[in-house]
C-alpha cells in the first residue's frame, strides 16, 4: 500500500528528526509525489532551505515540474550534475549550480558546502537524487566513500539528508551500500 507517499515521507522525516541520514527507496510512479513531499510538505512547511542534488533530471526540468505542481521553490537550490555533461542549458542562474560531471564527486560535496555557507548555516534538507544515477558513472567504492563524507558532514550540521534510490534502477551492490551508509531506510513502493 503506497497511499500519498508525499505525506508519508513528510511524516517519516518528522519522526526521525535532523541529523539522521535517510535512504528513500521509491518507484518511478511515485517519483513526483515523493519529490513534492520532500520539497513542499516537508522542507517548505518547516521553513527549511532545500539543497537538491540532481544527477538524474536536469535542474531546469525539475524546477519546471515543481512549478507546475505549484510548489514554492524560493528556498530551493539545485546542484545539477547532469546538464554540463549533456551539453545542456548551463546558463548562470541564482538557483542552480552546475557540476561538470557526475564523476566529480568532490565538487558536489564542495557545492553543498558552498550553499550551506551561502544560506548562513541555516537548517536545510539536502536531497541526493539519485544514488542509482550516480552509480551509472561511479565505482561503488568511491561512491560509498563520497556518501560517507557527505552525509557525515551534513549530520554534524543538523540537516536532513535524504538519499533517493529508484527501485527499478537499483543494483543490489548499490542498494546494499546505501543501506550500510545511511542511518535509516524508508521504502515507498509496492513489493512484488
Amino acid at each position, binding site marked *: 500500500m503506497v497511499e500519498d507517499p508525499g505525506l508519508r515521507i513528510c511524516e517519516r522525516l518528522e519522526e526521525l528528526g535532523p541529523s539522521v541520514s535517510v535512504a528513500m527507496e521509491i518507484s518511478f510512479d511515485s517519483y513526483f509525489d515523493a519529490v513534492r513531499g520532500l520539497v513542499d510538505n516537508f522542507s517548505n512547511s518547516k521553513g527549511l532551505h532545500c539543497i537538491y542534488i540532481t544527477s538524474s533530471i536536469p535542474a531546469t526540468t525539475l524546477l519546471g515540474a515543481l512549478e507546475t505542481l505549484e510548489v514554492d521553490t524560493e528556498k530551493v537550490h539545485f546542484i545539477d550534475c547532469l546538464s554540463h555533461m549533456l551539453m545542456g542549458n548551463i546558463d548562470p542562474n541564482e538557483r542552480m549550480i552546475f557540476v561538470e560531471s557526475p564523476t566529480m564527486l*568532490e565538487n558536489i560535496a564542495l557545492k553543498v*558546502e558552498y550553499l550551506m555557507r551561502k544560506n548562513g548555516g541555516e537548517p536545510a534538507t539536502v536531497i541526493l537524487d539519485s544514488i542509482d544515477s550516480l552509480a551509472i558513472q561511479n565505482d561503488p567504492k568511491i561512491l560509498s566513500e563520497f556518501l560517507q*563524507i557527505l552525509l557525515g558532514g551534513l549530520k554534524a550540521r543538523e540537516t536532513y539528508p535524504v538519499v533517493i534510490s529508484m527501485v527499478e534502477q537499483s543494483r543490489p551492490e548499490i542498494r546494499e551500500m546505501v543501506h550500510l551508509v545511511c542511518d535509516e531506510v524508508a521504502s515507498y513502493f509496492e513489493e512484488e
Partner: protein
Amino acid sequence: MARDSESERCRTGIEGLDRILGGGLPRSSITLVTGDCGTGKSSLALEFLVRGAMFGEKGLLVNTVEPFGKLISSIPRFEFSDKDYFEGEEIMTLELPDLLESAGLMEQVKEEKAILDLCARLQETILENGIRRLVLDSLTPLHFEIGSERLVHHLLRRISQILYENDCTGILVSDSGPFSEIEKIVADGVLVMSNYDRGGDLLRTMQVIKMKGADHSRSRYAIDLTTMGMLTTPLLKGGMH
C-alpha cells in the same frame, strides 16, 4: 627579540585549512604556497589577508606579478565580508617596483647590500604599520630579477628572520619548478596546490607537505575557490589504483 603573541597559532580563517593545520599556521612563521598556475595560490593568499583583517590583524601584500587591480579581478569577490579591506588601512599593498624604488634599489638588486636594504625597507613597513600578516605574491619574478640563487636564499632567510622578530606571519607564493626548491628549504611550511587529473576530470587540490611545529594532516584535499572563500573536502581515494 621574544615573541609577544598570545597564541602560537595564526588562524588563517580558512576553515578547512585551519582544520588541516590543526589550528592554523605557526605564528611568526613563513609558509610557501607553491603550485602550478590556476590552482588557487593567489586566492588562498589574499583570503588569508582578508580573514586576518576581519580578525583585526593588519596585512601587507607585496605584489610582484601584475598590477594589483588585475590580480584582484582574477579572484572571486568574497561575500563573507561586506567591507573591501584592500580599500582601507587594514591591508596595505605594495608593488615590487615601488618597494625597490622606495629603497633606492631600482638598478642594484643584484647586489648583496641591495638585498639588505630591501629587507630593511620591508621591516620598516612592517613595524611602522603594525603588520601581522604578510603575503609576497609571487617569488618567481624575484628569481629572474635577482638572478642568483645564493642571493635569493639570503633574501628569504632575512625575510623569515624579520617575520619571526616582528610577530608577523607570512605566506610566500611561488610557481612550482626548480626555483621553488630554495623556498622549500627556507620556509617553515610548504603547502602544495595542484591540479589532479582523474579520468579527465581536473580537480583542484591542496596538500600540506611540511609545517614545522604543527601536527598537521598530510592528506590531499579537493578545494573550490568560491565567493564564500576557499572550501575543502577530502580527496576521494576509492577510485585510485
